[in-house]
């Protein structure tokens, strides 16, 4: 008898949970979950007004359930949230979704869904996901992290059937530092609080991804 009650309760709560998750988002998640691993070549261009950096190249390797690995022959800056194409970190802990109607980008209409984590361990407080329903994939995300500000990802795909993007625009917030011109000698002792007086700036990174090697489950 106890087993039956437990089973009923589990089924009830599972059903309740399922009701709180958008079915279109679930379909996209299932499609992304089918990727076991992939590797790709990256081309990175930084657009931050106080940083000058030439175009950088790197290689990325993703395996499901593991952090993305990067390798490069020279120095590269990889945006922390910009390369989570599999949306692993959004779906890592329990969450509910709230429909937000539709939004239009460049004349194309997308379904807007808010993802709200119900587990305190999640590193974001709320995320907005724009879903490309006909092609069953993510078109844009805006993630409000608990510690690292807001990230905005615009994903562009090569083909209608592509699951992973070939061009990604990552927008983020970043603090501007004021550092003395001559940072040798005594000038090295810097008051960091004073340096942060200018507050937050926004920056962008443009990623071009090519030569995907995808292994599905």
């Amino acid at each position, binding site marked *: 008898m106890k087993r039956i009650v437990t089973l009923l309760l589990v089924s009830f709560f599972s059903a309740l949970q399922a009701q709180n998750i958008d079915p279109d988002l679930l379909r996209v998640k299932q499609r992304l979950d089918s990727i076991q691993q992939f590797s790709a070549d990256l081309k990175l261009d930084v657009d931050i*007004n*106080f*940083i*000058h*950096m*030439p175009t950088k190249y*790197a290689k990325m390797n993703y395996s499901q359930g593991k952090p993305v690995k*990067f*390798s*490069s*022959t*020279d*120095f*590269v*800056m*990889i*945006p*922390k949230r910009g390369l989570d194409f599999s949306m692993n970190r959004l779906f890592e802990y329990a969450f509910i979704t709230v429909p937000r109607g539709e939004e239009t980008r460049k004349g194309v209409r997308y379904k807007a869904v808010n993802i709200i984590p119900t587990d305190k361990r999640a590193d974001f407080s709320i995320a907005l996901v724009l879903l490309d329903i006909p092609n069953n994939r993510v078109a844009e995300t805006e993630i409000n992290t608990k*510690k*690292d*500000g807001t990230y905005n990802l615009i994903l562009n795909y090569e083909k209608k059937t592509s699951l992973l993007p070939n061009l990604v625009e990552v927008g*983020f*917030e*970043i*603090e*501007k*530092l004021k*550092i003395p*011109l*001559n*940072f*040798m*000698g005594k000038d*090295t002792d*810097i008051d*960091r609080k004073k340096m*942060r007086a200018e507050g937050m700036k926004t*920056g962008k990174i443009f990623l071009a991804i090519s030569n995907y090697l995808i292994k599905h489950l």
Partner: protein
Amino acid sequence: MKALIKAEIYKLVRQSKTYYALASLFMIEAIILFSAYFQGKNILDILLDNLKKSFYFEGSLLNGNLLVYLILNTLWFHLPLILMIIVSGTLTTEYKDRTIQTTMLQPVVKWKFILSKYLVAIGFTLLVVLFLALTSFALSYGLFGKGDLIVYINTLNFFEAKDAFLRLLYAFLWGALSMVFFSVASLTIAVIFKEATKTWIVAALFLVISNLLLKVDFGNAVFNQLFFAKLNDTWQSFFYYRIDWATVYLNSILLLAYIGLFMGLGIWLFHKKDIG
């Protein structure tokens, strides 16, 4: 003239203080390199602090190029000090040992004699900078390898290893011109003061004041551009993301003019004064 230059080179090569100076410069360079390695970690931490929140970093910025850049930052104060002591010493020693009087008893034209000293001083300065450039690159690349260079000048500038090497090379070239200026100035000071200690004190004062005035804004754009003390920082121009070549050329011409002016003044004074 050739004979005079040869004689000056011979004197410079034969005197033991030349080698003491070279050894001390190499020692200073090694100490700077050692301290720059530890300072480099701190500097990178400061420069990349706010970026760490948003980015993962792949590759190391604590490499030979950063260390050569840090060496340059310190070297341009210590190097002229030692150069000024050696270069001015080539004349003050002659006054002290009275060898100048012996030389002047020979059929030697006074202005040619002092000009040969200036020319040898310039050649010696260029050789020392070449020696320091070679050892800086060899030590830094040998111990810490190559890699991207990060420099903060109004903006955070990243340079790829090849580009960084070229910019550091330009900085050494321009630094050499700046060092020639200080060497020439010290010889002119030696012409005026004759006595070694007085010359060294005034030469050191000249260097310190030049360095202090470098950071002073005189509130006049033309004066800020033309004043000699303001020119010695031009080597930093090579670490802006886009090099302002027009300013580099203008400053080079101006510094060459100052070198000519100091040299001319020294030759004129030496020619006019009695050897006594």
